[in-house]
């Protein structure tokens, strides 16, 4: 038998054993554990339940090149910034924080908020940052998380003092560039909101068409008692980008997370979002859209750990798939034994615009408490013929009617975006993609 060439894996091994001098996001101690996992690593296959619907073979056979020297697409960066013109902009290029393209962390960050590069943290701050990671129970224990933890050389530690409310959003932009080879990035952020504080963060991942890239970001987020975080993730990467992200959020007593995801780009995206209710009365509102065309694979995984009573989780995700694209929604709600009076809603609706598009949806509930209110539902369907005819009967062409109905389907999610300029931006991005789909079909 011949051994399968596994370039990505070889590259990981090389990195684990690399003696090259470089700085890392996490401490040697914390990295050690992840490097050990990577050293004996076996990448998941379709036989692993957790990855059954996620095709990794193409990613695993990609050859990662040296760090890209290709210039950043500045016009693209400017365009992305328009999503929230009044934001504080923080820019990563190929996974490395770029202080020249970002606001000045020393002078421009408002009082009470601190944004620091992980690799330059004094040891006392690093310990504080890593405390969040140590508390994370990491139920979705996957190798990609360890790639970021073990190998990441860049990231931000964002801390907000208690009782501080920041209106101006933080917009974190991740751009990839590449020449002939595949560039990789694995930024690692730790975000900690103090008691009763409030923050809005928008994370945008993008690359110009044609860029070959692998993006493996990880965020660990801790919300202290009564804190409130609005978090948006927007995927606009090139058709040659594979993106696997891990976000873990710990929600203390009465803290609130609103997390939106809009997956519109990339060849493959797998987005893992894990929420752990660390205290009673917490709330997590998750919204998202995955919009795929051609042979894109867009995959959302959520894991709600109701480990405490009186918490509320409310998930609503919608998929729109065209071409031969494939969407996956896999949502798990775990209600532990003492998590009484849990309120957990989970809804996933999908619209197939072509014959060859496909969706796998799997909302799951595991309930060990007896006094709970849990619902879940999933649908996969096509455009409603009666609604199409109604619009046509008023003079609207079939193509326009289909566009209106599809946009309406997505608008029921995007209308919940509270930042007005971001809402317009996302709705426009969705519309321009739907417009293209329509043109393709005519």
């Amino acid at each position, binding site marked *: 038998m011949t051994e399968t060439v596994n370039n990505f894996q070889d590259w990981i091994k090389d990195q684990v054993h690399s003696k090259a001098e470089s700085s890392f996001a996490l401490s040697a101690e914390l990295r050690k554990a992840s490097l050990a996992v990577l050293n004996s690593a076996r990448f998941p296959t379709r036989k692993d339940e957790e990855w059954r619907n996620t095709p990794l073979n193409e990613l695993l056979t990609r050859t990662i090149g040296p760090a890209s020297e290709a210039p950043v697409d500045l016009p693209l960066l400017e365009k992305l910034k328009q999503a929230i013109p009044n934001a504080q902009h923080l820019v990563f290029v190929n996974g490395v924080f770029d202080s020249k393209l970002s606001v000045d962390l020393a002078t421009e960050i408002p009082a009470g908020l601190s944004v620091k590069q992980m690799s330059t943290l004094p040891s006392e701050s690093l310990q504080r940052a890593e405390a969040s990671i140590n508390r994370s129970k990491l139920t979705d224990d996957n190798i990609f998380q360890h790639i970021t933890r073990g190998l990441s050389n860049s990231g931000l530690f964002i801390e907000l003092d208690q009782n501080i409310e920041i209106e101006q959003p933080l917009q974190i932009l991740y751009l990839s560039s590449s020449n002939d080879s595949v560039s990789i990035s694995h930024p690692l952020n730790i975000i900690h909101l103090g008691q009763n504080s409030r923050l809005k963060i928008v994370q945008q991942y993008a690359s110009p068409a044609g860029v070959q890239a692998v993006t493996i970001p990880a965020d660990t987020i801790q919300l202290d008692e009564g804190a409130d975080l609005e978090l948006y993730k927007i995927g606009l990467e090139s058709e040659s980008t594979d993106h696997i992200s891990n976000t873990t959020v710990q929600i203390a007593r009465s803290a609130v997370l609103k997390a939106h995801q809009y997956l519109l780009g990339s060849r493959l995206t797998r987005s893992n979002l894990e929420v752990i209710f660390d205290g009673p009365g917490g709330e997590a509102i998750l919204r998202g859209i995955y919009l795929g065309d051609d042979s894109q694979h867009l995959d959302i995984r959520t894991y709600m750990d109701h480990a405490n009573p009186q918490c509320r989780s409310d998930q609503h995700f919608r998929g729109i798939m065209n071409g031969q694209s494939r969407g996956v929604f896999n949502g798990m709600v775990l209600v532990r034994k003492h998590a009484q009076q849990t309120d957990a809603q989970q809804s996933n609706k999908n619209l197939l615009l072509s014959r060859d598009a496909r969706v796998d949806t799997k909302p799951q509930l595991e309930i060990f408490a007896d006094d709970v209110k849990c619902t879940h539902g999933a649908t996969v369907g096509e455009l409603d013929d009666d609604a199409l005819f109604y619009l046509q009967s008023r003079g609207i062409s079939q193509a326009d009617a289909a566009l209106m109905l599809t946009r*309406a389907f997505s608008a029921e999610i995007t209308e919940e975006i509270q930042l007005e300029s971001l809402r317009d931006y996302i709705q426009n991005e969705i519309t321009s993609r739907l417009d293209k789909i329509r043109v393709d079909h005519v």
Partner: protein
Amino acid sequence: MLSIKDLHVSVEEKPILNGLTLDVKPGEIHAIMGPNGSGKSTLAHVLSGRAGYTVNSGSAHYKGLNLLEMAPEIRAREGLFLAFQYPIEIPGVNNTSFLKKALNEIRKHRGEEELDAIDFLGLIKKQMALVEMKEDLLRRPVNQGFSGGEKKRNEILQMAVLNPTLAILDETDSGLDIDALRIVAGGVNKLRSESNAFVVITHYQRLLDYIVPDFVHVLSNGRIIKSGTKELALELEERGYDWLLEKTETPS
């Protein structure tokens, strides 16, 4: 304006219209009555171009155009309008922007300039007053959560804004309270002119007190079995359909 000749239509192999003939001239109002399931809505749907109907024989011409060969949106742009018996709810599509888009498609087709937001708002405000519709319904998704009567008023509002040449009202009066009935009828009468025509499908003679028809037809088993004037409706109200049905053979 509308000329239907010996129209035979089936749905999933089941014959519904069995040789229907009808002529409508500009300025006329035709009422169509008939028992449940006789094919009234089917006729309205076939004329407006809904999919799922097979025309086996016969013809339907509108303004000299072969109606049955036209896409539904082209029929609408040519001035045909159907007020649905059961208006569809369309979540996520705003009532105002939907109607603005529809009107501008029709205007474009006629070679007229598209209306901008301000001009459109002016027009729609005026027409809303005509049907006495609550303004907040404009900001809601099309028909979503509208009461039965509100949906019917919304149909008439659309008709008033789109100003069709030929309007088919399919039981627009069903489910309306007496005030709403008067308002809807008032809307029709306001729009009525020498150059347009209405086909009003109804079960109730009382609508015809408000919208006075030039002709009344009885549809049964997919055919018009009797035509007359306003008095026929009164007679039907009194005697029902049985006396008519007995006299006609049902086609096999």
